[in-house]
């Protein structure tokens, strides 16, 4: 087990280093980062000046060395637009995004666990068919469009919840539903097929033949075992939701990392873009590491592979 933990941690460090390299190269992909950063009508001497100030004339490897050393200290420079350290701006917005991501996963579980279990236990019933249709529709619509429709119905027409911003529970509900759309659809499908596999197993038949109530059989014996693949999916989805609240935050004007980054991208504020992309990738790698270790702990066969 410990060998696996160490190996998996080292692997994550290698991946993190790769993420840094690509985050660095992103700005250099055109070969002339200074003209990317300057407005299109900038004069040649202004661009040259910026090139000198930012050290873009140095060899690429020297620039990368500088970038790498600062990144180790979590420093990605000063925001061009807001004059504050880029990473500080990102970290300031993390609570809002984390709140949204966790609420999204929570709502996803609230919907998908009963939907997945009922679909499997009452296969081909009207419940099964409607939740499978719901999952299919959920996977087929852009989540920002669901957000717009929810906004239209509940905020504009029915006036039940505020249309934008963050603060109370009523601010959170629509964005969380929107950000959790794909997770809901996916977890429902994974749980349904997991339950279908498990319900045919011998130990479920044994539990039934002992005369246990159906609810106990389904929720305590079957669900527990069907939940293992779901844990992986939840971890993956949490990583995806954290990085993918971008459109949701834009629809609902939610003051999170995604909206900050999109605005930074639109304004060529590159230190903020690099800091945010690195931070989100870091979180993704971290969550995946935790999920893998959790998984190995739940199912010890994994670490011997």
């Amino acid at each position, binding site marked *: 087990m410990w060998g696996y933990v160490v190996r998996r941690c080292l*692997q994550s460090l*290698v*991946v*993190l280093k*790769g*993420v840094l390299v*690509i985050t660095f190269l*992103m*700005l250099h*992909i*055109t070969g002339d980062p200074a003209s*990317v950063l300057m407005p299109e009508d900038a004069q040649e001497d202004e661009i040259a000046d910026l090139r000198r100030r930012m050290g873009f004339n140095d060899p690429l490897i020297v620039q990368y060395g500088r970038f790498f050393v600062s990144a180790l200290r979590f420093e990605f420079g000063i925001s061009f637009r807001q004059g504050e350290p880029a990473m500080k701006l990102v970290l300031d917005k993390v609570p809002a995004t984390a709140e949204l991501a966790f609420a999204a996963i929570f709502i996803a579980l609230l919907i998908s666990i009963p939907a997945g279990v009922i679909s499997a236990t009452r296969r081909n019933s009207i419940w099964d068919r409607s939740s499978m249709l719901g999952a*299919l*529709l959920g*996977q*087929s*619509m*852009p989540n*920002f*469009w669901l957000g*717009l*429709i929810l*906004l*239209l119905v509940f905020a*504009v027409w029915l006036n039940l919840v505020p*249309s934008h911003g963050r603060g109370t529970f009523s601010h959170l509900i629509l964005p969380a539903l929107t950000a959790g759309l794909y997770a809901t659809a996916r977890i429902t*499908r994974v749980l349904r*097929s997991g339950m279908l596999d498990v319900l045919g197993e011998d130990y479920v038949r044994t539990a039934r033949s002992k005369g246990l109530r159906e609810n106990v059989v389904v929720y305590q014996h079957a669900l527990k075992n069907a939940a293992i693949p779901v844990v992986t999916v939840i971890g993956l989805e949490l990583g995806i939701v*954290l*990085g*993918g609240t*971008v*459109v949701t935050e*834009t*629809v609902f004007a939610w003051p999170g990392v*995604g909206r900050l*980054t*999109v605005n930074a*991208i*639109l304004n*060529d504020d590159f230190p903020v*873009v690099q800091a*945010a*992309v690195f931070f*989100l*990738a870091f979180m*993704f*790698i971290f969550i*995946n590491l935790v999920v893998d270790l959790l998984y190995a702990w739940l199912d010890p066969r994994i670490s011997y592979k």
Partner: protein
Amino acid sequence: MSGNVTAVEARAAEYVDLGVAAEEPAWWRRAGASLLHNKVALAGALVLFFMSAVALFPDAFSPYSPHEQNPAMGARPPLYQNPETGRLHVFGTDAIGRDLLSRIVYGAQVSLTVGLTTVIISGTIGVLIGLISGYYGGWVDSVLMRLVDIFLAFPFVLLALSLVAILKPSLAIVIFAISVRIWVPYARLVRGSVLSVKEMEFVAGGRAAGLGPAAIMFKYILPNVLAPAVVVATLSVGRMIIIEASLSFLGLGVPPPTPTWGGILADGRNYIDTAWWICVFPGLAIMLTVLSTNLLGDWFRDFIDPRLKGLD
């Protein structure tokens, strides 16, 4: 004697021919029969066929020009008939009086082009990387699989947005920015299959016959590992369409004046209080298209190999 043999051979050949024809009709016939049998998938195919026709010949489906403005008229609800021009706007008009139906019809082009080309490009790259990684193993495999992990860690939409912003928005750049990250699942999938196929006897046979690595990879291994990748490809066309719409919605897709579904929805967000139809119809178009590709993809997966059911 030889005459006899020829006759027997001819009979045998005829017999074999008949046998093959009776047992195994051409794959496209089997596909057609299976599709006709599956009504849901057939509906998906018809919708997708219709959408492709719209994307290929937008002139034939759009009542008016998608660019012609009428700021004085402004946003009008569905089924509005302009008393001055006598024009009927079935889906209504947007804030500067452009016909919404015509804009949605022209928007199909970008969505379907991006959906198909990104899948083809990223699928090809992913399959090649998976093939090389699985076949050579060792350090080549380690390096390529770490590369896969690195790309997997990036927040996808932000990576694509940054690339589009740096390289300046255009159709080709949008396709590139999406493909940069989307080859990853193909590489993982194909590598896994290659690992088991390369141990099989016919591969050893190929090697014993003196074939080089390229010939073995492309002639012996590739045909045996392609099916799951093709299934994943058909199932991801819809996702690519959604991602393109997201980029356009965030303002970094194919730039105006080209109409895109995501771009129209971004406009609609600004007028959600006063003109609901701008938010509703483009989304329906996206959902219908993506739904049809998903239904068709599900059918295709079961048709190619029912054992692939877990893939999506």
